[in-house]
């Protein structure tokens, strides 16, 4: 099925005219962040306005560049080398930028959705004393995210990658009075570092094998590498992508990240940063398409994660956590898409864009609900809210319809083709992955219905003294705009954006697989309807306020499928024991050997001896031991 038609060489055109100033895109938010940091309290009064203005300006600028790029003929790309970052010797890394169809759509997504969420945050954070700090971090994030998508080599991508990680860490821990927020920040940081390690090693491997980390050099050079090298390189990149995008086995941090303020969840942990992994794989499509095993791994991870996300999503009662697991599961769909390769790359990207709209919209809607309900997050404590917050209800509802994939909203145009593509993967795996994707669609319909019905319909289950009310216009206007996006974007993008992305992701002939388009659509609709109906029937009367005893499956799901326990067992414990063992060895071990012998025979005198055993001598012993080893090793290497 791999009918990839790469033009023999990837070559980017140098930027000219207006496009040579694309560095402004990340410079503007960065400058704004710097101003907000440096001026400190003096900027408290107007800081949020500057923050919003800088992102809106960036969006306008992004539009200008987009149309400039559209006007170019032939090789639609613009490459700018700002300066040589590490210019010396065989290692040459430029501070270079690249605007091509792929990065252009990401720029529009980041700045567009980013602007709306910034505006929303003005209202959401209105009473928070740290609002200026919040906008500074938020602008920093936008700058880093733009750097991530605009770089023309992997080092630049890594810069942005670490930058968004840092901003995300700071924003998750923003309410640092809450210990859970601090813990969540730490967890996110650590799990991301695991992924980053993979990414970093992949970069060194590229450098070692291909002598460059520039996109064009790497993509053109992949063909010369052995399959094994490509596999290792791809797996390492995938590890990085999994860390950033909350995919199995590194998914546990993402739901905890909801401890941050809601606009953060919407922008960073739903719309943009967590999709960076998808961007990385789509950008490196030349690497991933070059090895079939690699693609299978990506597809498997996507399918597994999308199911994990759905199952856990069904059991959670915290409105933001449900949405978070839904994000995990939707990114699973995207991984499925990029893993399938070929034409599905573009499908994953349009699903990513559509997801950016509807998921951001729903998160903001959840924020609006929490705003009106005094920060209550438990969906068992909502109910009947549609009467009190009509705009939120309608916009959230549109997002909900979009995510479960009812026509003609965006999910229908973006998710269904991925399911179709999964079924059409050759061999028995097609049935497996297609089935998983189909099952996921049904589960998504079920848990989203549960969320929607419990929140907005059914009997009121609020605690006394709550007065639900609609949020101010500064918050509802972004909601409306995002809802419009989630309604319209699917249809608008389904062909035009796919064509637009062709230069980057390759041109693919129309495929005719084992199942036709309408067959799959019919199946999907049936499954979705089933899930929807089950959700409505079960929850239309509300739900019990307390957690009910449940069977093993639900319990497991409530416990995040024991992901934390798993992590603790597999990663944390060995690390902790290793540390302890080494500390022990350093302080006690050497003495311990000495003392141990004495204690065995001398019995009670052992303690006395230990009090007298000095460290200088044990240090000297370890040095002498080391010396012996060095001498012996040198002799062994040479003479042995």
């Amino acid at each position, binding site marked *: 099925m791999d009918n990839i038609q790469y033009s023999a060489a990837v070559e980017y055109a140098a930027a000219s005219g207006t496009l040579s100033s694309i560095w402004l895109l990340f410079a503007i938010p960065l400058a704004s962040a710097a101003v907000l940091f440096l001026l400190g309290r003096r900027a408290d009064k107007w800081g949020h306005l500057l923050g919003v203005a800088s992102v809106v300006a960036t969006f306008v600028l992004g539009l200008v560049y987009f149309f400039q790029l559209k006007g170019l003929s032939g090789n639609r790309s613009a490459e700018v080398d700002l300066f040589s970052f590490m210019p010396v010797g065989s290692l040459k890394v430029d501070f270079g930028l690249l605007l091509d169809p792929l990065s252009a759509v990401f720029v529009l997504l980041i700045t567009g959705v980013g602007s709306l969420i910034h505006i929303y945050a003005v209202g959401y954070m209105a009473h928070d004393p740290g609002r200026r700090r919040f906008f500074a971090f938020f602008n920093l994030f936008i700058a880093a995210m733009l750097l991530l998508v605009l770089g023309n080599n992997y080092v630049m991508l890594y810069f942005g990658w670490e930058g968004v990680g840092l901003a995300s860490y700071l924003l998750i821990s923003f309410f640092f009075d809450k210990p859970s927020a601090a813990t969540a920040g730490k967890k996110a940081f650590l799990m991301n570092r695991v992924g980053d390690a993979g990414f970093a090693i992949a970069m060194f491997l590229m450098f070692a094998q291909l002598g460059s980390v520039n996109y064009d050099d790497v993509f053109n050079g992949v063909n010369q590498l052995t399959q094994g090298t490509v596999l290792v390189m791809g797996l390492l990149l995938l590890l990085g992508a999994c860390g950033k995008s909350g995919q199995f086995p590194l998914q546990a941090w993402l739901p905890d990240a909801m401890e941050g303020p809601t606009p953060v969840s919407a922008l960073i942990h739903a719309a943009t940063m967590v999709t960076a992994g998808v961007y990385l794989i789509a950008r490196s499509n030349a690497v991933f398409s070059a090895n079939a095993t690699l693609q299978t791994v990506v597809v498997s991870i996507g399918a597994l994660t999308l199911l994990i996300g759905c199952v856990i999503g069904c059991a959670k009662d915290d409105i933001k956590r449900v949405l978070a697991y839904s994000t995990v599961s939707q990114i699973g769909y995207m991984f499925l898409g990029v893993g399938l390769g070929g034409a599905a790359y573009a499908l994953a990207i349009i699903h990513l864009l559509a997801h950016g709209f509807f998921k951001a919209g729903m998160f903001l809607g959840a924020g609006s609900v929490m705003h009106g309900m005094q920060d209550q997050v438990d969906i068992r404590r909502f109910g009947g809210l549609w009467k009190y917050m009509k705009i939120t209800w309608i916009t959230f509802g549109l997002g909900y319809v979009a995510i479960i994939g009812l026509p003609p909203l965006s999910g229908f145009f973006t998710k269904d083709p991925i399911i179709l593509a999964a079924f059409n993967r050759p061999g028995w795996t097609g049935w497996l992955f297609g089935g998983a994707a189909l099952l996921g669609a049904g589960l998504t319909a079920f848990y989203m219905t549960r969320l929607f019905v419990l929140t907005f319909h059914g009997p009121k289950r609020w605690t006394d003294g709550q007065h639900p009310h609609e949020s101010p216009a500064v918050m509802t206007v972004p909601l409306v705009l995002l809802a419009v996006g989630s309604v319209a974007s699917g249809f608008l993008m389904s062909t035009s954006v796919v064509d637009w992305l062709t230069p980057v992701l390759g041109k693919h002939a129309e495929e005719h697989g084992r199942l036709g388009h309408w067959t799959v659509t019919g199946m999907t609709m049936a499954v979705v309807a089933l899930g929807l109906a089950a959700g409505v029937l079960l929850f239309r009367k509300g739900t019990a306020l307390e957690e009910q005893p449940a069977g093993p499956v639900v319990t497991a799901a409530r416990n995040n499928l024991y992901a934390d326990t798993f992590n603790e067992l597999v990663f944390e414990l060995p690390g902790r024991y290793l540390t302890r063992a080494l500390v022990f060895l350093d302080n006690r071990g050497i003495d311990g050997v000495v003392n141990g012998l004495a204690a065995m025979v001398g019995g009670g005198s052992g303690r006395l001896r230990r009090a007298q055993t000095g460290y200088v*001598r044990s240090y000297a012993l370890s040095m002498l031991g080391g010396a012996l080893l060095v001498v012996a090793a040198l002799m062994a290497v040479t003479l042995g």
Partner: protein
Amino acid sequence: MDPSYYIVLSAALFTIGAVGVLIRRNAIVVFMCIELMLNAANLALITFSRMNGSLDGQIMAFFVMVVAAAEVVIGLAIIMSIFRTRRSASVDDANLLKY
């Protein structure tokens, strides 16, 4: 007489010094053992100088002696200052810094 016997002797001296550092507790004696190691090196240098037929080794031995003397002075000063505080020259007593 085969000059390489001197090399073996110097190795023996060096080893005795190294072992002495490990098993003696008095800082002054530990330090004397280190001096023994330095002098073992001197012996080796001079022997090799003779075996190689060049004077370099002997000149080096001069320098090493001067350096060793300077080291003695510094070492005694440090050991003396800690002895006056702690009333003990045992290296085992100096173990406030650990873990």
